[in-house]
């Protein structure tokens, strides 16, 4: 999910004061420490991603937002 999409989805359900910070690049070496990434997918990343992206495949962020103090309209989603 792209950062702007994350922020838009929060606003879409009614959140306000959306803030995105704490940006932290995450690369293949870091992913290899997580047991959820198999050796096969780590190898796939090394093989298919250009070398200049190996240290920055994704970006870790912290997203903050607030529910309005006055009752806002909650959109129904399925």
């Amino acid at each position, binding site marked *: *999910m*792209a*950062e702007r999409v*994350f922020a838009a*989805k*929060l606003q*879409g*359900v*009614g*959140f306000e004061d959306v803030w995105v*910070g*704490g940006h*932290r690049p*995450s690369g293949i070496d*870091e*992913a290899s*420490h*997580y*047991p*959820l*990434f*198999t050796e*096969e*997918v780590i190898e*796939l*990343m090394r093989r*298919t*991603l250009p070398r200049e992206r190996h240290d920055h*495949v*994704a*970006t*870790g*962020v*912290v*997203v*903050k*937002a*607030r*529910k*309005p*103090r*006055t*009752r806002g309209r*909650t*959109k*129904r*989603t*399925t």
Partner: protein
Amino acid sequence: MAKDLMFQNEIKEAVRDAYAGISTGAGETVARWLYSDEELAEVPAGAVAWALGVGNPVRYALLQPGEDVLDVGSGGGIDSILAARRVGPQGSVIGLDILEEMCERGRRHATEAGVNGWTQFRRGEMEDIPLPDGSIDVVISNGVMNLSARKSRALAEIYRVLRPGGRVSMADLTVEGELPPEIANDQSAWAG
């Protein structure tokens, strides 16, 4: 519509199976990238070993004593325990996880940390949070929202359980641009 629902179920099953199949978290190496020495000293070693997050949402949440916190996708409980330290026994923390075995780990680690009196772990899904409307002050999550095939539904549920003025602090991975389809479509990459 039916095809979309089947796809959502396939994703949910893939994520559930991936997490149920692991025997350890990302461990101390990753935890040291995300948490300070002081923060790691506040949680039992087992919770550190089972850390699977991608950031530090508690640090940004600015929790206050007495607040009621929901940790969506609480895993081994590291963020729930850190939150419990900050809200204290006047507040409360609920860890929500799709896997009962993760809830059990969270309970064990919260007991070791001595915060079990005001920290509980419940099995449930972020798209159907088993809590009443307006019952929570702060929702935290760590590397979880990307796992949902129904992200807007999950965010609407978080909105529902928050009190007016309540806030969220969520750590996650974002990707700008395209990933090769072999990676984007790999179940392991999705779950991770």
